[in-house]
C-alpha cells in the first residue's frame, strides 16, 4: 500500500471513530430530559393538586390532619392534667406527666401525632384547613366538582380551622400563625398570646357561621361552629357571648360532631384507645377518675376498670372504657358541652339554679341522682367544672379547664415524681412554652 493510501485510510478511520463517538454523545444528549424523568408513585406534587376540582380530597386531608392532631392533643392534655398518668419506662414521655416539658424536647417539638407530638400536628391541622379555605375562597362555584357546595365546604373547613386554633390557644403559652404562599415563599407570623389565638379562632368560627347560614345547607358545620365559638369565648371569659352561641345548639339534644377513627392506619386509630386498652396501657387513667361515682352511684360517663397489672414503671394500670375499640369516634363538639357552657355562664352571672337544672338534666341522662350539694355560686361553679370533667372525660377539655380556673394541681409542683425528679411546672403556668424549633426558625421571634 502506498503511503498516501495508508494516510487516507487512517484519516477515514479516525473520522469514522470520531463520528461514532460524537453520534453516541449526541444521542445521549438528545435523550437527556427523558432520562432524568422519575416517577413519584407515593408522593403527590402540590402544584397540580391544589385546585378547586380536588376540593373534597383536600378537605378530607385537612379534616384527617385535625383528627390526628386531636388524638395527641387529648393524650398530652390528659397527662398534663389528672386524666392520665404515663405508664411507660420511656423517660422522654414522662415530661408531660411530670408537667416539665423542655422546649427542646424532641417528642414535644418535632414528633408527630402518632407519637405524642402535639405542636407540629396541631399547626399542620390549622394550616391544612386554612390552605384549603384559601383555595376555596379564590375559586368560583363553577370550578367546584359537581354536587359540591363551595360555601358549605368553606363553612366546614372554617370550623375545623377554628378548632385547630382552639387547641393552639388552650395548650400553648404562645403560638404562631405562619402562611405558605402559593409561590413557595413563607410569611412568618408573630408570637400570639392564648387570648389572641382564641380571638383568631373566633374569627374562623364566625366565617363558618356566616357561610353556613348563607349556604343554608350545612347545619352540622353551623352547630359545630357555634359550640366552637362558645368554647373559645368561654376560654376568654366572655360568658355572655359564650352562652349566646351555645344556646344556638340547645334545641338539638342529639347533636354531636365527632372525629372518626378506624383501624385502617395508625394515623386513623382512636389515639386514646391506642394508648390505653386491654392489650396495652401506655397511659393509665389517673386516680381521680378511677371507679368514679356520684353519691355512690357509678358514673358511667367515666367508665374505667382496674387492669390488675403493674406497668413497666411500676404503676397500677387502669383502663378507660369510654372508647371501646380502635374505631370508636371521639366527640369534637356536642350538645352536652353546649349545655355546660350555658350552665357555667349562668352560674358566673349569678344564676346557680339555672346551672343546677342543667346539671340535673345531664345527670338524668347519665342515670345519676340529682345534684344535692350546696347551691351557693361557688359550690355550683365547682360542680359545673366537675361535671365538665366527667361529661367531657378524655375529650381534650380538661387542660384548659384547669388553666382558666387556676385549679390546684395534683400532685402539687415540687412533689417527687415516681420515676425520679419532681413534678412541675416551675412557674405558675401549665401551658407548654413555644418549642425551640419555632423560636429558632421564625425570624419574627426573639431567640
Amino acid at each position, binding site marked *: 500500500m502506498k503511503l498516501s493510501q495508508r494516510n487516507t485510510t487512517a484519516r477515514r478511520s479516525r473520522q469514522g471513530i470520531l463520528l461514532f463517538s460524537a453520534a453516541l454523545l449526541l444521542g445521549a444528549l438528545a435523550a437527556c430530559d427523558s432520562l432524568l424523568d422519575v416517577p413519584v408513585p407515593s408522593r403527590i406534587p402540590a402544584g397540580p393538586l391544589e385546585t378547586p376540582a380536588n376540593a373534597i380530597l383536600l378537605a378530607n*386531608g385537612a379534616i384527617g390532619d385535625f383528627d390526628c392532631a386531636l388524638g395527641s392533643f387529648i393524650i398530652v392534655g390528659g397527662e398534663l392534667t389528672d386524666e392520665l398518668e404515663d405508664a411507660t419506662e420511656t423517660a422522654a414521655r414522662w415530661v408531660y406527666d411530670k408537667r416539665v416539658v423542655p422546649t427542646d424536647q424532641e417528642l414535644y417539638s418535632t414528633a408527630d401525632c402518632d407519637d405524642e407530638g402535639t405542636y407540629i400536628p396541631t399547626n399542620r391541622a390549622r394550616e391544612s384547613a386554612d390552605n384549603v379555605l384559601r383555595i376555596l375562597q379564590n375559586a368560583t362555584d363553577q370550578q367546584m366538582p359537581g354536587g359540591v357546595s363551595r360555601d358549605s365546604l368553606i363553612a366546614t373547613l372554617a370550623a375545623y380551622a377554628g378548632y385547630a386554633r382552639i387547641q393552639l390557644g388552650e395548650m400553648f403559652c404562645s403560638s404562631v400563625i405562619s402562611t405558605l404562599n402559593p409561590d413557595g415563599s413563607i410569611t412568618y407570623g408573630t408570637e400570639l398570646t392564648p387570648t389572641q389565638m382564641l380571638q383568631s379562632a373566633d374569627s374562623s368560627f364566625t366565617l363558618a357561621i356566616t357561610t353556613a347560614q348563607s349556604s343554608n345547607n350545612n347545619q352540622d358545620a353551623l352547630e359545630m361552629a357555634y359550640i366552637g365559638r362558645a368554647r373559645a369565648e368561654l376560654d376568654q371569659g366572655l360568658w355572655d357571648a359564650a352562652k349566646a352561641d351555645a344556646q344556638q345548639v340547645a334545641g338539638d339534644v342529639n347533636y354531636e360532631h365527632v372525629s*372518626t377513627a378506624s383501624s*385502617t392506619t395508625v394515623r386513623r386509630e382512636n389515639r386514646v384507645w391506642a394508648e390505653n386498652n386491654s392489650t396495652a396501657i401506655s397511659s393509665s387513667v389517673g386516680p381521680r377518675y378511677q371507679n368514679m361515682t356520684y353519691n355512690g352511684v357509678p358514673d358511667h360517663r367515666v367508665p374505667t376498670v382496674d387492669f390488675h397489672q403493674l406497668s413497666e414503671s411500676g404503676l397500677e394500670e387502669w383502663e378507660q372504657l369510654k372508647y371501646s375499640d380502635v374505631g370508636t369516634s371521639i366527640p369534637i363538639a356536642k350538645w352536652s358541652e353546649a349545655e355546660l357552657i350555658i350552665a357555667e355562664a349562668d352560674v358566673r352571672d349569678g344564676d346557680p339554679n339555672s346551672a343546677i337544672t342543667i346539671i340535673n338534666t345531664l345527670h338524668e341522662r347519665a342515670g345519676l341522682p340529682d345534684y344535692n350539694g350546696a347551691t351557693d355560686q361557688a359550690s355550683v361553679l365547682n360542680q359545673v367544672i366537675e361535671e365538665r370533667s366527667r361529661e367531657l372525660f378524655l375529650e381534650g377539655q380538661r387542660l384548659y379547664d384547669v388553666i382558666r380556673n387556676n385549679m390546684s394541681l395534683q400532685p402539687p409542683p415540687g412533689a417527687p415524681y415516681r420515676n425520679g425528679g419532681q413534678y412541675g411546672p416551675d412557674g405558675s403556668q401549665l401551658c407548654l412554652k413555644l418549642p425551640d424549633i419555632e423560636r429558632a426558625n421564625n425570624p419574627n421571634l426573639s431567640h
Partner: protein
Amino acid sequence: MLVSPCVSRRTRHRFGGPRSTARLLTRVATLAMALELALAGLASAQGLIAGYVTDKSNNQPVAGAQVVVQGTTLGALTDLSGHFRINGANGATATVIARRIGYASETKSVTVGDTAVQFVLEPRATSLDEVVVTATAGAATKREIGNAVTTIDATRIQQIAPIQSFQELLNGRAPNVDVIEGSGQVGTGAKIRVRGISSFDLTQTPLIYVDGVRMDNDQATGPVNQAFGSSSISRWNDIDPEEIAKVEVIRGPSAATLYGTEASNGVIQIVTKQGASGPARYEFSVTQGTNFVMDPQGRWPTNWNMVNGQLESIDFTQLNNAYKAHTGNDIFQNGYTRKYRAGIGGGTDLFQYYVSATSERDDGAEQDNDLHRENFRANLTIQPSSKFKVETHMGYQTGRTNLAPEAGYGGIPWTTMLMDPASVSDPAFFGFGSSLPWQYNEEYHMFQDINRFTGSIEFTHQPTSWFTQRLIVGADQVNTMDVELALRIDSLLNTNIGTDALGYKNQANNTDEFRTYDYAATAKINATSDLNLATSVGAQYYTKKYEFVSASGSVFPAQGLTAINALTTGLSTGQDVTENNTLGYYAQETIGWKDRRYLTLALRTDKNSAFGTDFKRAYYPKASLSWVVSDEPFFHVDWLNSLRLRAAYGETGQQPDQFSALRTYAPVTGPGDQPAITALTLGNPKLGPERGKEFETGFESSFLNDRVGLEFTYYNKNTDNAILDQQVAPSVGFGSDMLVNAGHIQNSGEEMVLNVTPVRRDNFQWDAAVSFSHNTNKIISLGIPGVSSISPGTYQEDVNGFPVGAWFLRKVTSAQVDGTGTAYNIMCADGHGGQVDCANAPNVYQGSSVPTKEGAFTSTFTLWKRLKLYGTVDYQLDFQKLDGNLRIRCYFEIGGLCKDLADPVHGNPIIVAGAQEGIPSYLISNASFYRLGEVSASYALSDEMASRLHARTASLTLAGRNLVTWTNYKGLDPTAQFLGGSRGTSVAWEQTVTPTLSSFLLTLNLTF
C-alpha cells in the same frame, strides 16, 4: 486443551465444603471447561507470545501480574506459577509490558512466537508504573495522574491477614479512610468516611464501584435492632473479600471530578479476580475459628445501689455466675465461625474464566446473633481479536443475618449494663437490670435476608493503536427482607417483657436497583516524539431506585402465629419508591512531555433528577500536574531512586435527596376512611448539589535501592453550598425540614505512607509500613443569616469555626455536695476560661465527635521464604465520644447505679452536680485508641508437603483480630456506636452496643 476430565473428577472428590456449594462449583467448572474447549478450537495459534514472570528479589514466580501487548486489547494475567500466554499478536515483534502492584513494571520488545519470554520484576516500595482504574478508557499509570491514589493489594493481604469482611480489608490500609465500627455483632457494619465530614446533612459515604458498576453503598440497613431508627447491617460487607483482586481509594474531589455528582465523599474502586490463560487452577480454602467478647469482666463496670441502707455492689462476674446457675452457660458465648471457599481460574488465549463459591457461617457472642451467607462469582473474559475484548463480571450473594437487640432496643448489653445489686434476690431479675437474657432470646427475633446480584459487561474496542473506547453496562440488584418479630409467649406476659409478649411484627421487603451505563473513549496521539496527547470523552448514565413494601402490627391472638395477617391490632402498611437519575458528560485532555511531565485538564457536567427546577446543570472542572523529577536528565541523586511531585485541583458534587426540591403531599386515609392527602415535604425549588472543591499536592518517592517508599499529600477540601437540613418553623404547617444550599465546610490535612524493607536477605525479610493522616474539619460558615448555631442532634451543635457535629454542652467546673448528697455551689464553664452560674452558662465546645487522626503500623517478617509473621496496629485519635452506658447508669433522670450517685455523699461532686442539674458533660470523654487489629502466622508448606496433599501449593494461617486495645476510654468500646438513626448521624454515641468482637481463625489454603 489443558484440562482433562479426570482432573475434574479428582477435584470433585477432594472438595470438602458444603455439598451444595461443591455441586454448583462442579457444574460451573464443567461448563467453563466446555466453553474453554470450544473456544480453544476456534483460537488461532498465530501470534503467540508466552513466558513467565519472576520476582527479582527471590526468583519466585509472580502470580497475578498483568502482561499486555502495548497498543492492543491483548493481555493476560500470570497464573500461580507465574506463567502467561497471549495469542493473536500481529506483526513480527510486539512491545509487551508486565506490571504488578509492588513491583516496577518491565517493558520488552519481543518476537511474536516467542514462548519463553522472561520478565524479572523488581520489588518497589513505590511504583509509578502501576495501572490504576480511572473514569477514562484505556490504561493509565500512576505517573500520569496528579493525585494520590491508594491501591490495596487484596490478593496479597488475604494470604496473611485475617480478613473476614470488606471493611476489614479497608481498615488501616488507606490513609484518611476512617473505618468506625458500630457494633460487635457479626454481620454488622461500620461507618466509612474519607477525608472527614464534608456535608452537614447529606451522606458522608463514599461511592463504591465493583468492576466499573456503581453499587448500593448504604452502611446502615436491616431491622432497627438498635432502636432510635438505627439499623446496623452494611451493604459494603456483602462482597466476599476473597473475590477481590485489588481496591483503589480515590479520596477527594480533586481526583474524583470525572465521577461527578455524588463523588464528593471519595470513590472506592473494587476490582475482582480474573482468570489467567493456562491450565485450570483450583483453589480451596477452609477457615475455622471463634468470635468472642474480650474480657467482659474487665470491661463491664461495677454497679452500686443502697440495699437495706448498705451500699452494695454487683459486677459482671457475679452476674455471669447467676446466669450460669440458671442456664449452665456464660452470658457471652464463643461464637463458632467457619468458611469454605473454592474457586477455579484458567482459560485460553481467547477465553479466560474465574469462578468461585464461598459458604460462610459466623456465630456471634450472643445466642441470637449469627450470619450465614453464600457468595458466588463468575468473571469471564473473551478476546476474539487483538482489537476487541469483552469482560463480564457477575457476583451473587444470598444469606441471612440474625441480629440480637441492643442499644436502645434493650437486649443483653442493656440488661447487663443495668445490673443492680438490689435485685439479686428478686427472681424476676437475678441482678439483671431489666428482662433476663434468656427472655430476650426467646422473645425477640430480628433478621435480614438478602439476595444480591452485581453484574456488568464491558466491551473494550481498540480499532487502532491510538484509540480506545469502552462501554460498561451493569446492574446492582439488592433484594432484602427485614423482619422484627416479637413472639406471643404467654408465659412471659407477667415478666419484665410485659405486653411485648403479646407479640408484634414489622416486616419490610426492600428492592434497591442501581444501573450503570458508562461510555468512554480515549485517543492517544504522539504529536511529536516528546509530546503525547490523550484526549478523553465520556458519558455516564446512573440510575438508582429504592423501593420498600412494609407491614406491621401487634398482638398475635395465640402462640405459634408469626404471619403479619395473624396480627390483630395496629395493622399498618407502607410502600415508597424513590428514584434518582444522573446523566453526565466529560472531556479531558492530558498532555504528556517525555513521559515525565503531565498536565491534565478536564470538565464534567451533570444533570440530576433531584436538582430543583430553578437549578439546571452542574459543571465540575479539574486540573492536575504530575512531574517525575527523577526521570529528568539533570537528576542525579544516588540514594533517591524515584521522585514524583504532583498537584491537583478538582471539583465534584453531591446531590440532594430525591424530592427535596418538590413540595409534595402524601396519600393517606381520611375521615370515614375516605381518600385524603397530607402535607409531606415543603420542597426547595432552588436546591442544587453541594460543591466539593479540593486542592491537593504531594509527592511519592523511593530511595535506598527502593527499600524505602514515602508518599505524602497535603489537601484542602472545601464544600460550598453545603446542604443543610434546615428546620422549618412548624407554624408554617409542615412538619418536615427543608434542605437548603447554605454553608461552607473545610477539611484540610496531611496524609503520609511510609513503606520500608529494613532487611531483605534470602531467608529473612522484614517489611514495615506506617500510615498517618490528620484531618482538620471546620465549619467556615453556616450560611444562614442570623443563625450562628444549629443542633444536628442531642448535645451537638454546628457552629462557625468548629467541627461539624461537635459536642457542645454546659460543663460543670466546680461543685460541692452536702451531707444529704445534694450538690450546691455549682458552677459551669463560661466558655472564656472562667466560671458562671450554671443557670446562665452557655454550651461550650467539648471536642470533635469524629477522629481527627488515624493510621496504622504494619510489620511483616518473612522467614525462610515460607513463614510470615504479620501484625498491624491501627489507631484513631483525638475524638470525643458520648458514653451512653454511663448515661443510663449515672444520670438521675434515668438511673443511679454508678457509685457516685448510689452514694452521692462520697461521690464526685462534678458528677453528682451534673446528674442533679441535667448537665451531662461528664459523659463526654476522649475515645482515642490504639488496637492490635490483626496478627497472624502464615506458613507456606513445601512443594513436597503440598504434593502429599495432592496440591500444588498449600499454606496454613493462624490469625487473631482485635486482641488488644489501648485506650483511656472508660466505656465498653471506643468504636461501638449507633450506626444510623437519630443518634448515629455523624456522632460517636455508644449505648449498650455489643463491643467489637475479637477472634481467632485458622485457615488452610490449597491450590491444585
